[in-house]
Every structure is written in C-alpha cells, then in structure tokens.
C-alpha cells in the first residue's frame, strides 16, 4: 500500500520494516485517550477517545464550535491538551516529548486559510520543509516538489507567488507542501470552507486521489459527498464530545443519536 504513495516514503523512516511489523501488531498510528482540553475555564474537548489505524480515512463533522479544530490541532500539538493522552506512532505527546518536531514531520496539516508562505514562490513553499527540516539537497527537494505539484495538477505554477493563484490552486499547493514532507498521516481542517464554490471540487478531487493512494487521513469537513466517497468512519462531534462514530453507510442512513440526525438534516438540506 505504501508503495502506491509514490516516491520516497522511506525518507526519514530507516526503520520501514519496523513500520510493517507495527502494522501487524495493529497498533493505531493515532491513539487518543480520555483527552480533555480547557481554554481557561472553558472545556473545549471532553473525554475524547479515538484510534486511527494506518490507511484509515476519518471524516469529522459537527456544528461550529464543537471542538473539531481543537481536536485535530491536538494531534500535532499546535494545541496542548489539558488531560489524557495522545500518541502518534506510539510516541506520546507531552511537554517532555523531546522531539515534537519529529512527530510533526510525520503529521501533515492543511489549514482552512491555506497558510502558504506569501514571500516564497510555490516551488520554494514546497522545498523549504524538505531542505531545512529534512536536510534534503536542493535538487532532490525540487524534484520532489515538482512531482507533488504534478499530483495536485498544477505543475505549471511552480514559479508563481501564492497571491497570484486562485484559492483552489493555493489550497492544492498547501496540500502538496504537506506531502513533500512525506507524512504518514494528513490532517485537514475544513480545507474547502474558505473557497469559492466553483473551486471546491478541484481540491476535493485531489483529496480523493490522496485517499485512494492509501494515505491515512483525518478530515474535518462538511462536504458529505466527499465523506461518503472516502470515509472509513464518520465522527460526529458536539460541544466538545464525540457523540457518534460510524461507517458512512450507517452514519448517513441511520445515525444512532438524534442530535447527529438533526445536524445531518440541516447540512444535507442545502
């Protein structure tokens, strides 16, 4: 499965056999245990438990303010959790985690607002991580960058600056930037919410292709067509809690909780 991801997934993983052995033991790549997150007195996450296995595609949905962003930001420690445990690839994230950066290299993140580096060209956006963080040579990094630009269908934009691209193109560059780090998991935080409607599909298409290539993905999105197509499991959150986890077939036709049904009725109406 990992071969189909394209080039160089061995990068930074000298211990690939170990990775396979680990698949056999079926240790989840992301393990979240009894996670709480407080912002001062406000509890944004309440006792979250979730395991994500290699190759799985999880779609998280729920009303605005329900803690979806907070949850996935805890996975690469852009937010520090208040209680409970988060493991990435067996490494627990905490203040003592010596190399949080090593973990972050394994976990790609795509933001709602793209967050491209505006002072760098598209190609430089893609190569800066591999060159500075992975210590790759510039020619190798550029070759890899062009490969991933190709995969997100904008090979011709390499020398432009982000501001010269449409929103959909920018988000695809952001996806390529993450992929250039050869992560084992990709997190998406409402990647299409900031886009004009006519650009949503070009981004979703790229995400579907990525899912089909076997990438482990956790996507916060309200694009239910996409969710139906790729999700292995749907997660519904409300008020900081996971209310329901179910395969899409069951989730969309017969959700267990009334709140989830209400939410689906609301967003599927449109």
């Amino acid at each position: 499965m990992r071969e189909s991801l394209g080039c160089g997934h061995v990068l930074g993983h000298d211990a690939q056999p170990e990775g396979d052995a680990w698949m056999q033991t079926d240790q989840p790549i992301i393990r979240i245990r009894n996670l709480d997150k407080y912002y001062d007195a406000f509890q944004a996450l309440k006792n979250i438990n979730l395991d994500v296995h290699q190759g799985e595609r999880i779609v998280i949905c729920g009303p605005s303010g329900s803690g979806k962003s907070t949850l996935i930001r805890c996975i690469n420690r852009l937010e520090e959790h208040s209680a409970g445990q988060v493991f990435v690839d067996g490494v627990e994230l905490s203040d003592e985690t010596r190399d949080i950066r090593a973990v972050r290299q394994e976990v790609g993140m795509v933001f709602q607002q793209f967050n491209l580096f505006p002072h760098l060209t598209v190609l430089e956006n893609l190569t800066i991580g591999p060159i500075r963080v992975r210590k790759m040579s510039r020619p190798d990094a550029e070759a890899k960058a062009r490969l991933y630009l190709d995969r997100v269908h904008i090979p011709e934009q390499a020398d432009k600056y982000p501001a010269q691209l449409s929103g959909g193109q920018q988000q695809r560059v952001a996806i390529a930037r993450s992929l250039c780090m050869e992560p084992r998991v990709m997190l998406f935080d409402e990647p299409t919410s900031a886009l004009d409607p006519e650009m949503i599909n070009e981004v979703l298409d790229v995400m579907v292709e990525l899912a089909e290539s076997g990438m482990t993905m956790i996507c916060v999105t309200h694009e239910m067509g996409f969710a139906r197509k790729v999700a292995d499991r749907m997660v519904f959150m409300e008020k900081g809690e996971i209310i329901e986890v179910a395969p899409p077939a069951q989730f969309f036709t017969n959700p267990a909780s009334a709140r989830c049904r209400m939410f689906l009725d609301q967003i599927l109406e449109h």
Partner: protein
Amino acid sequence: MAAATVDISPPRPQRRLTLRKLFASRSLSVALYALVLWLIVRTALTGAEAMGYDWQWYRIPGYLFSLTDDGFQLGEIGYGLLASLGLSGLSFLIAILLGLLVALLRLSGLVVGGAVALIFLEVVRNIPLLVLLYLFYYVLGPIFGLGRYGASILCLGVFHAALVSEIFRAGINSVARGQWEAASSIGMTRAQAYRHIILPQSVRFMLPPLTGELVNTVKSSAIVSVVGVAELTTVGRNIISETYLSFEIWFTVAAIYLVVTVCISAFASFLESRYAVSN
C-alpha cells in the same frame, strides 16, 4: 427627482478627498518645503546683513574637500562627515542586534527574559539621551575602560535599541499567526521559523520605521560632540572657534545632515518599492 437628490450630496467629500490628496502629493510637499526653507534663509540673510555680518562663503569649500595637484582631498568637515557616518553606522548596527535580541526576549514567553527586556526598555526610554551619554562616558567608561568613542557608540546603540526593538516586535507580531502554525506543522524549529518565514515577511512592515530610526541615529549622533568625539558637529564647532565663521559653518553642517538623511530616506523608498515588486 431621485436622481437630482443623489447628485447633490456626493461632490463635497470627493472635493475634500482630492484636496487631501493634493496635500499628500510629493510635488506639493517639496514645493512647500522649499518655500519655507527659502523664507527662513531670506530672513536669516537680511537679519545677518542688518547685524553687519561679514559673509565669507568662499572659505567653506576648502573645509569640505580640495582638488590639488595631489588629487582629491577631504577637508576637515569632510572627515567629520565620514566620522559621523561611521559612528552612526556602528551605533545603528548595535541598535539592530541589541533591538532584535530584546524583541525576541520579549516575545520568547520566558518570564525572566520578558522581565529583563521590559526593564531595559523602561530604563533606556526614561533617561534623556544626554544624561545617558554622561552615564556611559563618565561612569561606565572608566569602569569598563571605554574610550570616548566606544562609550559614545555604545550609548547611541543602546538608546536606539529600545525603539528598534519595538519596531521589531511590532513587525514580528504583524505576521499572521497561521504562518507560525504552518512553519511548526512542517517541523520547523522556532529559530528556523523566525529566520525563513517570520522575519522575511516582517521586513516589509519594519523597513519604513527602521529607516526613520536610522535617520534619528544620524541626527542624535551629533550629541557626542559634548564629550569631544571628533565628528561633524565637533569639527564644525572647532572650525568656528578658530575662524568665527559661525553662520556659514552651521548652515553647512545642517545642510550636510539634511542631505545625508534625505539620501537614506530615498534609498529606503527605493528598497521598499523593489520589495513590493518582488512580492
């Protein structure tokens, strides 16, 4: 009817806008500037004439530079200018390095670092530059074995570091939070994020105020003449004490400061426009 009422109101704000634009326009500011300067010079000249001042402008060029058989040679004022530029340049370099350090300390989130930076800022900002100079020259100088030149450069550097650090801090803070998050999420260290992502973007915000601060440094460097460092202002004073050409020399010295600072500003706007294009 409706069209008529619509027609009546808009012109007013529009005219005010063009007036404001006119006043903001470069050519008008230059013209006003020249007019005011001319009025001042004229008043001074007539006043001087009334005093019976003996103008000897012909003696001034020799103090700037001379062209002899040996070729081009700088005069006393010329060397004074070089000294002032060197002094300001070194001081500003210190101000930049120290200012960056103080800004990073304040932004570091470290309690001790933040406190140290804050105390530094409050102390420096609340002491007059002249007193700070006396402190450096008469107190710190003997203690640390600083000469008048060293004490002056350090004093100016420290004084301007306070403002420079605020410029850095504002510039760094004006870069969107998402840039930090994107840099972290690809595994960059804090230092890498600063160097490759944050600082390059904040330069755009920092360049104009930094230029202003460089101009201020050049101007405030004149103060070190009180402890006898040989620079433009000191040279001017020395020449006057020998020749009594006070009007000519002070006009000349002032004009030189003016030319230098205007050149710095022009260079900065050139840099800015280049940066804007490449972005």
